[in-house]
């Protein structure tokens, strides 16, 4: 094995990745080259046994980061270490101690049974022969697939396939596990089971280090010790979610469900002294005869609530519901993604 060069489970230093695409506009015309910076000098580290969330909108660079750390992609700049091993120069060592689970229904062989899939991957990872059967059985039991272990994967539901993927990700008992949107497209109860499984079995019981990427902010809020926000390839914030929320310059949020909201009223609201930001978000609801809009208003303190309500009343808007809350990860996400 190589020499360990980092005290962290994962260490990323000034990591960059450019995607270069060339295209010829005409059959014999000149080629034009486009460079997209998927990652722009990002740095972060993950402690042993930590569940770290990497958050960001589509195209922010989350999957690119995971692929580099799993050795599936080479960076164009910077360095990354997993358990001290360089992911480029010591890729073979890294592959032995990591695994990845991606969302969606990929990475499994549908004509093989669940057990055959796991046995195949156990062979690829050189799991000791004597342990293969017991490890496969234990993993299948852990995710509740024992009874369907000998059915072909094509007969599995989406949730079952995802649970089997998690077994595949654990087949080599990885020290660091990368979960790239592991609950993508799953229904609420299955996603909840999977989150619980990751937190309790993988992190707490087995002490594994996990890097999770997700779009679902409640998922990150519920699961992660620390989070990092990526936007346009840049890591714009890293830390404990409570700490990030405290530092967030947006203060409180008032959520209003209102009727008779006009553009003029919304624009006027934005100009109130106590209001920092005001946006309408998707909401499908209506009273007996009127459409309901959902307003999220960022204010500095709770003292702004009566002022906002007075304003809405003066503008003849009917307030159906009011909710005052501190910033959530979703607010942070919107803030860092530049959508507030």
């Amino acid at each position: 094995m190589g020499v360990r060069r980092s005290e962290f489970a994962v260490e990323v230093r000034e990591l960059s990745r450019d995607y270069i695409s060339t295209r010829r506009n005409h059959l014999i015309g000149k080629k034009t080259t486009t460079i997209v910076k998927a990652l722009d000098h990002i740095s972060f580290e993950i402690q042993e046994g930590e569940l770290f969330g990497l958050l960001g909108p589509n195209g922010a660079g989350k999957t690119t980061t995971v692929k580099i750390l799993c050795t599936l992609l080479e960076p164009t700049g910077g360095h990354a270490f997993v358990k001290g091993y360089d992911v480029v120069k010591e890729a073979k060592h890294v592959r032995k101690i990591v695994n990845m689970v991606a969302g969606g229904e990929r990475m499994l062989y549908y004509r093989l049974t669940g057990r055959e899939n796991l046995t195949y991957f156990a062979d690829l990872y050189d799991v000791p022969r004597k342990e293969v059967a017991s490890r496969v059985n234990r993993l299948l039991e852990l995710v509740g697939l024992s009874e369907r272990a000998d059915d072909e994967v094509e007969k599995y539901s989406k949730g079952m396939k995802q649970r089997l993927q998690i077994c595949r990700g654990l087949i080599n008992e990885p020290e660091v596990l990368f979960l790239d949107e592991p609950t993508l497209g799953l229904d609420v109860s299955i996603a909840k089971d999977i989150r619980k499984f990751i937190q309790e079995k993988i992190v707490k019981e087995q002490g594994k280090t996990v890097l999770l990427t997700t779009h679902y902010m409640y998922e990150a809020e519920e699961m992660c010790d620390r989070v990092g926000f990526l936007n346009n390839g840049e890591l714009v914030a890293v830390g404990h979610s409570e700490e990030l929320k405290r530092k967030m310059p947006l203060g409180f949020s008032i959520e209003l469900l209102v009727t008779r909201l006009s553009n003029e009223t919304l624009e006027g609201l934005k100009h109130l002294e106590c209001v920092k930001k005001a946006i309408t978000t998707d909401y499908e609801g209506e009273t007996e005869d009127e459409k309901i809009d959902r307003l999220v208003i960022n204010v500095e303190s709770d003292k702004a609530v009566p002022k906002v309500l007075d304003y809405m009343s003066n503008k003849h808007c009917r307030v159906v519901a009011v909710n005052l809350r501190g910033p959530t990860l979703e607010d942070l996400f919107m803030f860092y993604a530049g959508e507030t």
Partner: protein
Amino acid sequence: MFLRVVLAEARKNLKQYFFTVRVLFWTLALPLGNGLYLYFLYLPFGAETVSLEFSASSFTVDLAGFTLIGQLLYSFFTMMLLAGVAFDRERWQGTLESVLLSPANRVAILLGMAIANTLNYLWLLVGVMISWVLFLNVNILIVDPLALFASILLSYLSLAALGMSLEAFCIHSRRAHMYANMLQEPIMFLSGLIFPLQSMPEALLPVSYLLPLTFGLISVRLTLLGGASIFDVAIPLTVLAFMVLIFFGLAIWLMGYAERSAKAKATLTQF
């Protein structure tokens, strides 16, 4: 570890891609149909035998046998081309990442895929041979079993190695499938599969002699149907042995190069 990965890969490929009634049926039906088509195409011209000339020797073999061996080796070549696009198949079904994420030896994975295709080919070989020998009375004349064995083995290895080279290339590019299809027809024409090499325009012969299928066809036809000895087929066997070394070396080098290049260019999991 190496052997374990080879076997695991072969088992997986057989179950995932070949063990269905439909695949097994068409594996047998297509070459059988194609071979019969060629045989009956030649019959009206009154050619019941075909003269094969190579180097200074000349052998006469019967038409059914000539077509049979041509079709069998061509089917094997096609199957190896199919093995060649196995990584492309993995790419499309979304499993390539999970395979390359593992520390398993890449050459062992290639070999496993080639072995699965070979086992599938054995089914074709036995089925087509039995049908032709029983129904078309192919005249088999084996004088030197060692020469026959060497011819079959080296033909197999050279075509398998060619397939593996292509397979490695598939990691690099999603266009490999297209190249495999492009190669198929010209190779069928140039290798002497449909007609003997001496009927080929001389200008094209140098290209024919670059193909392992050409030498495989010569050596197997002569040793199985023409009663040739090991000395008669020494040249094609030597050429085949060189081709085995070249293509295996190329496959091993390409595998490493293609994976590195695909990771650098981000084409590894591109659909």
